[in-house]
């Protein structure tokens, strides 16, 4: 997009600010307009197409945050930058929550301003028609944040929708990275408890004693360091949902404690005697084979039956490859927004590679591959070389001929940043967050020539 077609709206109640800021940016070749207050800014927004809004925070009548909020609702693709003379953490946080692109404290460095605008312009991904189309198509393939169009997962979604409405305990099974946590959150969101807390405990991450006090809380003086009473996750999740992740990993003693809580719906804090009633819906998950653990007497059978009222099994990604294209679309879009990069799609060859891969790490692995791809990609369409996957995979595949080394990734990333900055090393160093000397030595090391207008690199 040309600079002239980048329309910037300056909103400030002070005329001198509007004039000088517009004047400054106009000389960079952008098209500028200004508005003295919120209502007239909104009128301008309705009348024209805007790429960027620079909006003062404190204005009489409608303040900057409200303009931001309304602007984002009208045109989510517009980048809004909030400017203020006073930095307060609260307003900064609020501004970012409401979707501000950035937050600037006046006065700022001339260089900072120009770089920020450049960054917005180069990163702004316009909402393209096909994204809208894709969204419309996808609505039918969703269960909350989970997307899928495979029949197996559609059946899982149906079961989950029904299960969500019941108060029963749910056991979610599936390999790591298949979306168990996402499923637990989705069930909570669909359940009558959705306005109450969703509390998550990863049982594998803690030692037995820590997990015990984490789950049940403790009384003052229960052990050295217990300076005051602390409530546990069961109490914290009261009237809501408690998600016990990696339940297959808990110790025999905790298995027993847990069983008691599930039976009595009361907890006793560590070091205490009082029975505290709790009203909690339990969702447990594991990537282990619980049935086998029961047979081998590593997991209590009675607890297993308590948990296993409704079982939702998420199939591994390699058994539902038809989900890969829709997941790719989904991740490119969400990651693109998160990383402020334009990620439109993958090339046909890259898609073929993704479809053929075995995905031992399941959806999480796919997400990671795409995230890395977006980082190294030079263009909005990801290529095979961006993915860092070997060309053939699976158990019988030969060792990959060219595994992407860290150095290779770094080289490609630097080359792409240099291209983005038209070979300007100072700006590239800033984006990369390294000093210029380091960048120069890396350019030399990787044989990236710094050419005006285009960054080189023979990859």
């Amino acid at each position, binding site marked *: 997009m040309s600079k002239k077609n980048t329309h910037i709206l300056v909103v400030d109640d002070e005329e001198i600010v509007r004039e*000088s800021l517009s004047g400054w940016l106009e000389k*960079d070749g952008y098209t500028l307009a200004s508005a003295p207050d919120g209502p007239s800014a909104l009128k301008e927004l309705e009348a024209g197409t805007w790429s960027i809004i620079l909006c003062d925070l404190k204005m009489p009548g409608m303040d900057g945050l409200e303009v931001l909020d309304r602007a984002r609702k009208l045109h989510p693709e517009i980048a809004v930058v909030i400017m203020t003379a006073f930095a307060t953490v609260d307003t900064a946080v609020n501004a970012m929550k409401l979707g501000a692109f950035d937050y600037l404290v006046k006065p700022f460095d001339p260089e900072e301003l120009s770089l920020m605008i450049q960054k917005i312009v180069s990163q702004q991904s316009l909402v393209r028609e096909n994204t809208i189309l894709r969204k419309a198509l996808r609505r039918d393939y969703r269960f909350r944040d989970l997307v899928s169009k495979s029949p197996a997962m559609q059946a899982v979604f149906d079961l989950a929708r029904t299960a969500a409405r019941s108060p029963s305990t749910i056991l979610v099974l599936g390999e790591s990275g298949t979306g168990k946590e996402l499923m637990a959150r989705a069930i909570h969101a669909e359940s009558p408890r959705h306005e109450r807390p969703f509390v998550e405990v990863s049982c594998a991450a803690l030692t037995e004693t820590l997990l015990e006090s984490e789950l049940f809380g403790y009384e003052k003086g229960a052990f050295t360091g217990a300076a005051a009473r602390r409530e546990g996750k069961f109490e914290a999740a009261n009237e809501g949902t408690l998600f016990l992740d990696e339940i297959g990993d808990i110790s025999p003693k905790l298995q027993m404690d847990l069983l008691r809580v599930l039976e009595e719906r009361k907890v006793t804090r560590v070091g205490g005697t009082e029975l505290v009633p709790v009203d909690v819906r339990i969702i447990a998950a594991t990537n282990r084979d619980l049935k086998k653990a029961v047979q081998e007497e590593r997991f209590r059978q009675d607890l297993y039956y308590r948990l296993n009222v409704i079982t939702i099994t998420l199939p591994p990604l390699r058994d539902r490859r038809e989900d890969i294209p829709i997941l790719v679309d989904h991740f490119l879009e969400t990651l693109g927004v998160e990383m402020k990069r334009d990620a439109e799609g993958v090339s046909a060859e890259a898609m073929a590679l993704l479809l053929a891969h075995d995905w031992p790490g399941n959806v999480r692995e796919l997400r990671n591959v795409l995230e890395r791809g977006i980082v190294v990609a030079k263009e909005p369409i990801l290529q095979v070389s961006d993915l860092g996957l070997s060309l053939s995979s699976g158990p019988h595949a030969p060792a990959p001929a060219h595994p992407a080394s860290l150095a290779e990734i770094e080289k490609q990333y630097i080359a792409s940043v240099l291209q983005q900055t038209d070979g300007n090393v100072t700006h590239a160093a800033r984006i990369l967050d390294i000093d210029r000397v380091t960048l120069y030595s890396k350019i030399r090391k990787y044989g990236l020539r710094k050419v005006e207008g285009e960054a080189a690199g023979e990859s």
Partner: protein
Amino acid sequence: MKEIAIWWIGASGVAVDLLEVVQRRVAGEFGLPVGAHLSAERPEGSLDPRRRQHSSTKILHWLAEHRPAGADRVLAITDADLFIPILTFVFGEAHLKGRAAVVSTARLAGDGLMLPDPARFRARVVTECVHELGHTFGLLHCQSTRCAMARSPGLREVDAKNETLCPACRERYLELATENGENDEQEKHPHSGRR
């Protein structure tokens, strides 16, 4: 006749040899007569006491009103540190397609620790004067880092520039000058080219 007036509006005594260099180089660059305007009058109301800097935007307004008779454009040079409300400082400012430009020498002398050699200092002042005047003729920032019209957010960028317009900007200048000549009567108000 289109003439550019150069006006020292600094607090200290006028640096005659500096003004002479600027006068000569600017005249050569734009192919227009340049006269020194020796007036003791100084802009009012531009000082921001809290920031202890002068508002370049306010100076431009004042200059546009106090433009010396017979001069088409006025280029003011000052030793005061300039700012626009949103930025910590500016080396100068100009009305795009307007009549007034101002350049400050305050930060071109260096970061206060080390004075540059006089030749480098003069080169910086000339470069920024060409730059701001370029804006009054309608030139925008140039992508070439060597061109006087390149954006100059810091001294490093100023030092990377030549004191002259690059061939592309030169061509654009000539184009704009012809257009301007035709529209001369409509260009009386410095803001007519702005939104």
